[in-house]
Each structure stands twice: as C-alpha cells, then as structure tokens.
C-alpha cells in the first residue's frame, strides 16, 4: 500500500517539475519578446549606435535566444541568477532580503487568516441556513468586493493617522521585540487577510456541506452523534482535500499579488521588485522573480495535492 502512495506522490512531483520547465520557457520567451531594448534603456542619453552594439555584445544579447535560455536555466539550477542590468548587482543579492520580507509577510498573514477563515467556513456549514451562515456568506462577498487599496488606505487613516496606534509604513528592518512585530505587520496583514479569506471561507463551507450530505454522516447522526461530532469527526476529515486546495490557491496570492499592499505600506517585497524590474527591462531580475512566483505556486499546489493524497485512506 505505502509503495502505492509513494508512487502517487512521486508522480505528482514529476508533474510539478514538468510544469516548472514549461513555465521557465514561457517566462523566458515572454521576457525576450518584451519590447523596449534593454541596452537603450540602460544607456539612455548615451545610446549611440556603437555604444549600443558594444554593450549588447558585452551582455551576450546577440547569442541565439535558445542558447541564452539554456545558459540561464543552467544558471538557475546552479543557483546563479545572473547580474541585474539596472545596477550591476547580483540578482540574488537584490532578491534575497526582499524575498525574506515577502515570506515573513506571507507567513504571518497565513497564520492569521487561515485559522479564522476555516473556523468561519466550518461554523457556517455547521449551522447552514442560519442567520450566522447568511451573514458570513454575505460578509465574505462584501469583503472581497472592496478594492484592497481602499481597505489599506482607510486602515492607515484610521489606525495610523488619527488613532496613531500603528505605523503607516511597515519597516520590516526595525523589528526587535514581538510587540514591534505586531505593530509593524498589523495593517498589511489585516488588509491581505481581507483579500484572501473570502475565497477560503466559501470553499471550506461548500466542501463541508458536501460531505455533510453523505450517508455516513447520516449514519453517525442515527448513532446519536451531536452536530459538533458530525462535523468535526465525520465531515471535516473527508473534506480536507478540497479545503487544503482552496487554501493553497489563496496563499499563492500572497507573494506576487501583494504589490498594492507593498506599495501603500512601502514594504520592500519581491512583488514591487519585479514591477521595478519590468519598468527598467531588467530581464534577469524579471525572469528570476517570475520563476520564483511560479515555484512557490507550484510548491503550494503540489503540497495541497500530496496532503489530499495522504489524507485519503483509500489511497493510503
């Protein structure tokens, strides 16, 4: 049996790897096709033809694209992400600290939003049709339908400008105590939680309700089980798969999707970095960022699938 599971998991991982390859190619192609010549952007005023030609050669931009692709891919696997065009720093150095920040923000948001969302979703399903259920459903739609920059800016005004409880900017590099951590991350985290929770709530609710309609839950009811027991012991374990999947999808938003939050709270994360990279046609940076996002996404999705596999005794 366990070998069977192992095979399933390995198969899933293989799929992820294949996808990643496709992604890398797509990303590279896209960035190469991106108009606006790097060199001209770089030289700006000094873009005389000979200067352009020289720099192109120096940056190996004249090599055939496919060859550059292979080299680039090789570089990535050996941990060499190239040198930023914009300010000859190694891409790794540029991304490193930013990534750390982004992951920190994502992590904290996850810790906050996932438990809340799941609890709400499950309780809503438990008392389906009740006023509580209704209000949760409406609320989740309402929340998701307010633009996030609106949420963020209002939050800043209330908590930072008027109440002066929280800082308006998030200086990730000034955290020494837990208290500071709370203060600094409070608002970005709340904003992001608003954005990603709704979907999780909806999916959780739906999944749990689905399993609640199964014969074995009815059976448990006929054993005299309480509502709580029905949901927690019988429905939930079988709804795990879809729930984990929904969570993964929502979380995948937290790296690339947070650009707006990063802008408003001036939080130095990877999303903003990539926006800059795009504007300066800084291909190595763009490609690395894009790859980064895809890897994270695939990681989340794959983990979700594997959890689903492991949580299913039929496969175990």
């Amino acid at each position, binding site marked *: 049996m366990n070998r069977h599971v192992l095979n399933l998991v390995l198969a899933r991982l293989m*799929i992820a790897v*294949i*996808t*990643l390859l*496709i*992604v890398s190619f*797509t*990303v590279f192609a*896209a*960035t190469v*096709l*991106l*108009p*606006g010549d790097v060199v001209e952007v770089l030289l700006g005023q000094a873009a005389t033809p000979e200067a352009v030609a020289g720099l192109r050669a120096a940056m190996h931009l004249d090599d055939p694209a496919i060859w550059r692709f292979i080299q680039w891919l090789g570089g990535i696997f050996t941990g060499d992400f190239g040198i930023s065009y914009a300010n000859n720093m190694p891409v790794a150095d540029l991304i490193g600290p930013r990534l750390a920040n982004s992951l920190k923000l994502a992590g904290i948001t996850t810790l906050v939003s996932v438990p809340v969302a799941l609890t709400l979703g499950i309780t809503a399903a438990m008392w389906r049709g009740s006023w509580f259920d209704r209000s949760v*459903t*409406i609320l989740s*739609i*309402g929340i*998701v*339908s*307010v*633009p*996030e*920059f*609106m949420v963020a*800016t*209002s939050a800043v*005004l209330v908590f930072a*400008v008027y109440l002066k409880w929280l800082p308006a900017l998030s200086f990730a590099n000034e955290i020494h105590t837990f208290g500071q951590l709370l203060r600094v991350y409070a608002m970005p985290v709340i904003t992001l939680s608003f954005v990603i929770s709704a979907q999780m709530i909806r999916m959780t609710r739906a999944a749990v309700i689905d399993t609640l309609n199964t014969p074995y839950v009815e059976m448990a009811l006929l054993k005299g089980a309480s509502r709580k027991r029905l949901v927690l012991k019988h429905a939930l374990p079988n709804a795990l798969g879809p729930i984990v999947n929904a969570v993964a999808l929502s979380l*995948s*938003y937290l*790296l*690339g*999707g947070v*650009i*707006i939050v990063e*802008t408003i709270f001036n939080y130095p994360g990877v*999303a903003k970095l*990539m*926006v800059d990279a*795009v*504007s300066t046609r800084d291909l190595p940076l*763009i490609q690395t*960022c*894009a790859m980064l*996002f*895809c890897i994270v*996404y*695939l990681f989340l*999705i794959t983990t979700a699938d594997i959890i689903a596999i492991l949580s299913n005794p039929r496969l175990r």
Partner: protein
Amino acid sequence: MVRSFFSLRAAGYRFNLVGLIGFCLVAGWAIVALSAPLIIPYPIGEIVDYDYFGPISGQFWLGSDYLGRDILSRILMGARYTVGISLLAVMISCSVGVTLGMTAAVIGGWLDTLLSRFLDALNSIPSKLFGLVVVAGIGSSIPVLVCTLAVIYTPGAYRFARALSVNINTMDFVTVSRARGEGTFFLIRSEILPNIIGPVLADLGLRFVFIVLLLSGLSFLGLGVQPPNADWGALVRENIGGLPFGAPAVMFPSIAIASLTIGVNLLIDNLPQKIRDRSQ
C-alpha cells in the same frame, strides 16, 4: 430585462427574494452602462466645480472629484468600462476555458496532460504582474486590457470545467453516445455542456467579480482605461486623496463596485431553478 424576468416566472421558474435583489442590482447597472451617455448631467472631462472633493449638492448629486469634475457623471460612464470590460473578459475567458476543459476531458490522453500542464503554468504567474508585463510590452488599450484579463482567468475556468466534465464523461449516457459512434464535437456540445452549464455559470459569476477587482487593482498601478474615462477602480484610485475628508468622490465609486459584485454574487448564489416536480 425585467420583462424577461417575469416571463421566467411564467415559465415556472422560482426566484427567491435575495436572488431578485441581486438580479435588480445587476440589471440596473447593465441598463446604466447601456444608456450612460444619454443620462450623464455633465461631460465627464469637464471641470465644472472650482472646489475639489465637493460635497453632495443639488448641482452635483454625488459631489465633485479632485479636479472638480462631476462624480455622478463619471460613475455613470465608469459603469460602461467596469461592467463592459469585465463582462467581455469573463465571457472570453470562460468560453475558451470551458471549451478547452470539456475537450480535454472528452479526448483525454496526451492532449489533456499537455493542456493541463500549460494552463497550470500560465496560472502560476501572479495576475497583477502578468498584467503589468503585458501592458509594459504592448501598451494599455481597452482590447489589450480585455484580452489580458481574459488570459489571466482562462486557466481557472479550464480547471473548473475539466473537473466537472471528467465526472460527466464517465456517465452511461455519454458511453451510449460513444457506442453510437458520435464525434467529439457532439459529445461536448450536447452531452457534456448542458449538464455542467449550471455550475459553470456560477463560476462565471465569481470570476466576474474577481475581474472587476483586478481591473481596479490594475488601474491602481496606473494601467486600465485611459483618461478622461475611468473605470470605478480608477475613480476610487484617483480620488483616494479625498478619503480623509470622507469625500463622496471616493465613497460612491467604492459603493458602486461593492453593489455590483455583491449583486452578481447574490444572483448566482440564488439562480432561478426550473420547477420540475414529479408529483405534479
């Protein structure tokens, strides 16, 4: 629209109140979007008020924006872009995604694998950044915007439709058609599609909401509809400076967005179902 609603009822469809509210909101905005140019009190670009972030007044029903333009007019026109663009995009993405999804499910094999992998890959690129790259590359015009949004949301529709179709595909009646010698197109069109259309519509509604939001998100990053026109997201964005004064210029566009998205959701969560009653 309203008439068609009643004819629905006549045809024996059941429509609950919440759904009705949603329907009215959506229909209302649709009508506004269609007739906007006729009903706006001022040209959207004209500076009619020397004050900025003006309050609600008899002259300017929803106050004036940061340049002293009439916000009501701008919202009414904005409906065109927000509703229009989102609707178009969601239509494209869903029709493409669903078709591919069904085909993949019916044909299966390597085609299925290939499509799934590729769209998964596409899906893994964050939407806002994707939008940025595209606009940085091709520039921002309404067609580009629509296509970008469509592309961004196609993988989701595909995943969804494929999952549903795979289930239907195992049903006996599909096997019957196969055994009869029917071609793929027939299987998709008249065996699979009619049986997944319901969920697909619901999914479409949700996607619509996300597109509306992404659209406003993009306009925050300086993309989106070009001035002096503006979708609602852009309106909120450009007047966000009025938030501290609680200026109507920033409140009402937000309310507009919320009302539309909530309306759509209420509608799709309570879609009318035909009453089919064996005991009748």
